[in-house]
């Protein structure tokens, strides 16, 4: 019987963050990713060891700027944040308590967060409270993932808002839609986690607002501006995806016995596992590659290479895949277009279209 711990082996685990969970929900059908994440495996290290390092990196300028902005917003017990919350939520907040949960030490943080949130929900204090660095947890496919958001939860009168601080700019009230969408997806993970916590404690989960507060720099300056973002849609998607996500136990059962994704780090921490062996083990867990993976998953180059070797039409993107109506391989689609292959049952319509398309292309190009 495989277990997630055995899958990870001797490599130290890597905690989840909301970004990973949001991305997981974006491609819920990918068993490989679900297993790697579920087992807390450092995908970046795996990809690098396999010779397919992920194309992500963050510029030191971007990191500096992000940290600078966050510390600006949180300076003096979140004074600046409070001013914005007052304006945005129209709250008559006179005084606000500030709890930095990070100060209590990592092993106690989750318990401490629970206790604080429980008390706040129970007492419904009139005074507002800001919770910095709360440690939340979320059940993912039958396993508990801990989230360490750098966000703040704000409660007033027993009602909670998630505050998410991002360093992309809002210029004249408009921001990069992709960046906002990613922030909303992440915030939805926190809303869900906080709601789960409240429910567990016997409170009404809807005390957590579906409107999150997004704090970004305004225009070209460093001055923060807050806006409310409705994440109901993201919540619905996330909840559905998490519920639908094949349980890890079933995925585990589908793997060959004794399989492991262990990197076998040596004394210096460098992986010693033979690359061919590791990549064979990984191929045992089916991936569902899509070009979107290139911006979300550390394993993307490995899976893309695999899709290339298999001649899968996934390479060309979901749009092409959808257009081909279930013809999975490039060779199959071209065979149908050239009339060299007979359509299987249910493929008659797409085969007719492909043959027609091929005839038209030839006519126009010769």
């Amino acid at each position, binding site marked *: 019987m495989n277990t997630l711990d055995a899958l990870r082996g001797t490599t130290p685990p890597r905690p989840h963050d909301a970004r990973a969970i949001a991305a997981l929900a974006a491609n819920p059908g990918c068993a490989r990713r679900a297993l790697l994440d579920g087992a807390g495996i450092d995908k970046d290290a795996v990809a690098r060891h396999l010779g397919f390092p992920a*194309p992500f*990196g*963050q*510029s*030191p*300028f*971007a*990191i*500096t*700027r*992000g940290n600078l902005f966050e510390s600006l917003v949180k300076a003096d017990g979140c004074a600046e944040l409070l001013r914005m919350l007052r304006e945005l939520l129209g709250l008559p907040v006179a005084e606000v308590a500030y709890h930095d949960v990070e100060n209590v030490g990592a092993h106690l943080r989750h318990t401490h967060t629970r206790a604080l949130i429980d008390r706040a929900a129970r007492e419904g204090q009139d005074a507002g409270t800001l919770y910095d660095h709360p440690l939340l947890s979320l059940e993912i496919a039958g396993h508990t993932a801990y989230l360490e958001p750098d966000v703040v939860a704000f409660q007033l009168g027993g009602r909670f808002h998630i505050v998410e601080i991002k*360093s*992309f*700019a809002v*210029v*004249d*009230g408009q921001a990069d839609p992709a960046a906002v969408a990613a922030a909303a997806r992440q915030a939805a993970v926190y809303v869900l986690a906080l709601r789960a916590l409240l429910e567990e404690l016997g409170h009404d989960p809807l005390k957590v607002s579906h409107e999150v507060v997004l704090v970004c*720099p305004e*225009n*070209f*300056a*460093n*001055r923060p501006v807050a806006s409310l973002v409705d994440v109901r849609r993201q919540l619905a998607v996330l909840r559905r995806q998490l519920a639908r996500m094949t349980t890890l136990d079933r995925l585990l059962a589908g793997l060959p016995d004794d399989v492991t994704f262990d990197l076998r780090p040596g004394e210096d921490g460098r992986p010693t596992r033979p690359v061919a062996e590791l990549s064979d083990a990984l191929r045992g867990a089916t991936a569902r590659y899509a*070009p*979107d993976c*290139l*911006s979300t998953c550390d394993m993307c180059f490995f899976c893309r290479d695999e899709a290339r070797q298999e*001649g899968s*039409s996934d*390479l*060309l*993107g979901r*749009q*092409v895949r959808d*257009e*081909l109506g279930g013809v999975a391989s*490039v*060779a199959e*689609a*071209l065979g149908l*277009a050239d009339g060299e292959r007979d359509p299987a049952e249910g493929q008659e319509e797409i085969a007719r*279209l*492909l043959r*027609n*398309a*091929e*005839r*038209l*292309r030839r*006519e*126009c*190009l010769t």
Partner: protein
Amino acid sequence: MSLLTSLARLRALEQGIAQPVATVRHCHLSERPMVFIPLKLSGEAAAPLAAMLGTDRARPRLLVVTQPRNRDLRFAWAAELAGELLPYIEGFLADTETVERRNADPYERALDAPQLIVPNPAGVAFTRLLGRSTRFRRADGPYPVPEGVPLLGRWLTYLGERAAYPGSCLMISATEELARHWASGQSALEDANLAALLAWITTGPSDDAEDPLVWPPAGPATDPGFDAEVLAPAIESGSDERVTEALRTQLEPTWRLMWQSVDLLSGLPEAPGAGQRWEQDRGSFSGMAAHLAEGAPPQPRRDGAVAAAAKLARMERAQAAYDVQRAYDDPLIMAEYRLTGEAFAGEVIETVPDNTEGEGRSRKLRPLVVIKTDDPVRLAPGTSLGTPERRGQGAELVSAGEGLVTLKITKGMGRGKTAAPGAVPEVGERVCYTSLTGDFQGSPALPEAEATPWTHGGPPPEHVPDDEDAQEEWS
């Protein structure tokens, strides 16, 4: 994307080289385009880092902000950029033609117009942001910026907005135009990488294209590894020369790719529609120049209700016209409509050139044409048709079925009792007809901006330049 393009992508993957998806060039290419590759500082909204630009491939100009966080240097950079771009743009204003208009005064239109070519759509977006961060500045007053910077901001804003216009070529991005003409064997997402797309078109896919050490990103974002290992230490060292040379290594490869893109595109013959759209671009450009000459205020941060509605209507019309013109200009684009049954092509097998309808004075000439086609026609009797072979002609579908289509010609046969010679296709001729025609609905009448109803926020406030705009932080 259509099934035809998807098939081309599959074929590209199989053959290991990009496949054409157009037979003519659907964008106008200037004889003297300005290639513009901007780079921005990571993590910032619109902090310029460098730009390589110029109209001569042998002599690129490199402009660098050697200390990217220094506000004065940033404005000095913008002033240098203005020194390059403004003379280029304004150089097109000298030679004009007078255009007569119905129901309006004639106007002067520039004979040629500027064309900015950036690597990718992100380059267009960054240019627009550069425009936004500079157009409200003032060269006088308590927070002066160098001369030319506010004007540059207004031109960049104009060009950035114009780039969103379907078919406009005043500012184009290389990856988008290349992808409009060639289908690679990778996804649309990966096509946004200029080096990768060009490799597919010229030599076949190459992993080098994604290696930032071989082909640095085409901007505006820089490679994070370069930022950490080269740029940050160079800035730290305080040596202007070191920063400049570091950035040159990131821009020069893209510079070569940009001109390679220009060469590839100019290898295709220009479609007639591209010339027509360029004429509109020239008109728009002259309009903008006249606007500036009249001392109009900078473009507002947000469009007013009336301006936004008018812009949207213009863009919708431009999109519809663009789609029709491309199909009429290019059999490979028309093939997409043939595949969906909105167009058909085939051989004329029978004609009745003197067919008429009606009696006495209302008797009209309606020549009948029967066409044999292999295309799946999905058009109802009575549908109006047009044809790329005879642009002025109008026709109507009479019946279609079993590979035969009968249509009658309704327009464009001359005024005589019989059809003008050549108006009715001959037996044996190959023809193509489509329900796609250039007849669009006119745009709705919109009130003047001053009469914007209260439901739409009332008249937009007039722009009053103030010091707050002029001193807006740019960090």
